[in-house]
């Protein structure tokens, strides 16, 4: 589904943020990307739907080359859902309007169709009552669930999560993770940048560990948590699992 091969990316002439990254996510697979901050994991996931350009290598998404100038990027992006650290709901639109905007403007669905789809997804994330509120009137956890629903409204073939729980208060993390776990169980293809190792050990198929722009480890979940091969991954794990 997602094929990342030999991707190199620089900021400016000298600062390399991604170094020869190669990996893939198969259909229905859940891959967790972790690593210390500044390791390039958010950058990598943003390269997948071309939110960030990269200079070398290639990424192929459902058979379509992302970094081909001929690719219709808006059309391709519409097929991949993305969830951001800071939710990024549109503050001037009601919750239901947030869910409808891209359905109508990008997919060309009628307003009625879009609203019906939006309401169904709000029910799924348990926020039916909030449909007519504005984002600023919701808690962080609720906003992030809306953001997931907004991405799902586009009927995506895969979902990208960029630290979806990092900006949340601890008591709100589980309500978001629950939605993500359900999605994973339904067979959604997911690439998730997160520090939630509980989530990783519960639903991930594979774990990718990144450090200083490199993919240091790309292993099955059991291998990664059981016996990480690299010293850097061992150190990282011992640090975040020590509490």
């Amino acid at each position, binding site marked *: 589904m997602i094929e990342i091969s030999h991707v190199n990316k620089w900021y400016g002439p000298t600062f390399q943020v991604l170094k020869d990254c190669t990996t893939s996510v198969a259909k229905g697979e859940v891959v967790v990307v972790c690593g210390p901050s500044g390791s390039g994991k958010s950058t990598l996931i*943003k390269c997948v*739907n071309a*939110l960030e350009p990269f200079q070398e290598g290639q990424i192929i998404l459902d058979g379509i080359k992302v970094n081909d100038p001929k690719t219709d990027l*808006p*059309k391709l*992006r*519409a*097929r*991949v859902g*993305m969830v*951001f*650290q*800071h939710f*990024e*709901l*549109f*503050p*001037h639109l009601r919750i239901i309007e947030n869910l409808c*905007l*891209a359905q109508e*403007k*990008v*997919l060309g669905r009628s307003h009625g169709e879009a609203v019906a789809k939006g309401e169904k997804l709000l029910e799924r994330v348990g926020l039916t009552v909030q449909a007519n*509120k*504005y*984002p*600023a*009137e919701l808690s962080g956890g609720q906003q992030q669930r809306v953001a997931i629903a*907004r*991405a799902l409204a*586009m009927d995506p073939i895969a979902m990208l999560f960029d630290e979806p729980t990092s900006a949340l208060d601890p008591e709100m993390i589980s309500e978001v993770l629950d939605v993500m776990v359900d999605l994973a169980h339904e067979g959604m293809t997911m690439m998730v940048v997160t520090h939630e190792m509980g989530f990783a050990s519960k639903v991930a198929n594979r774990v990718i560990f990144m450090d200083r722009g490199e993919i240091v480890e790309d292993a099955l979940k059991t291998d990664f948590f059981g016996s990480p091969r690299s010293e850097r991954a061992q150190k990282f794990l011992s640090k975040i699992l020590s509490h």
Partner: protein
Amino acid sequence: MNYNWNWHIFFEPNPTGAGTYLDMLVSGLLLTIKTALLAWIIALIFGTIIGILRSLPSKTASWVGFGYVEFFRNMPLLVQLFLWFFVLPELLPRAAGLWMKQLPNAPFWTAAIGVGLFMSARVAVQLAAGIASLPRGQKQAATALGLTTAQGYRYVLLPMAFRIIMPPLTSEFLNTVKNTSVAITIGLIELTGQARAMQEFSFQVFEAFTAATVMYLAINIIVVTGMRFLERSLAIPGYITGK
């Protein structure tokens, strides 16, 4: 000081034979309003286009925006009006220049366009600042949903940016109204022009300019009230500018 106050002067016939002195001032007031409204519309349209150009990642676009803004904001308004009114017709091919000079209401069109372009540079800078003040993730979220750049601006960035810059835009609208008085120098007999004419005919300088001041004040109170009302009706519940 030996000055004969005469507040009844407004109801005395003016020497042009068309009504009273008050009628003179009111016709000036109407012309001021007409000029200011047209100038403001021009300022908003061009300001929006240039503001957007300045916020785009493209180097060419931001250079065009930069050049435009610096051209229109670094020259005194008076000089700009002279340039459009006296110099431009001479620079054009003879036929075109002649056509411009013979335009009916040339001072009106020159003033509205001249003041409009001058103000558009200021609107552009504010709009660009408003767009820049939005979280970067907003544009990314719009892009990730498959919205094109134009759709992202139309449905996501501009509605928020304009809400944010509403208070400074109110000031710019007021400045537009006041700046139309400069057009007296190219022969536009607007409110200031009529007040001066009244003073020359009647020697009641204080009454004439008191009335003009009150009329400017009245227009601007209406502008401020209208903009406040607009600001409130667009406020987003739960958001900073909301309640």
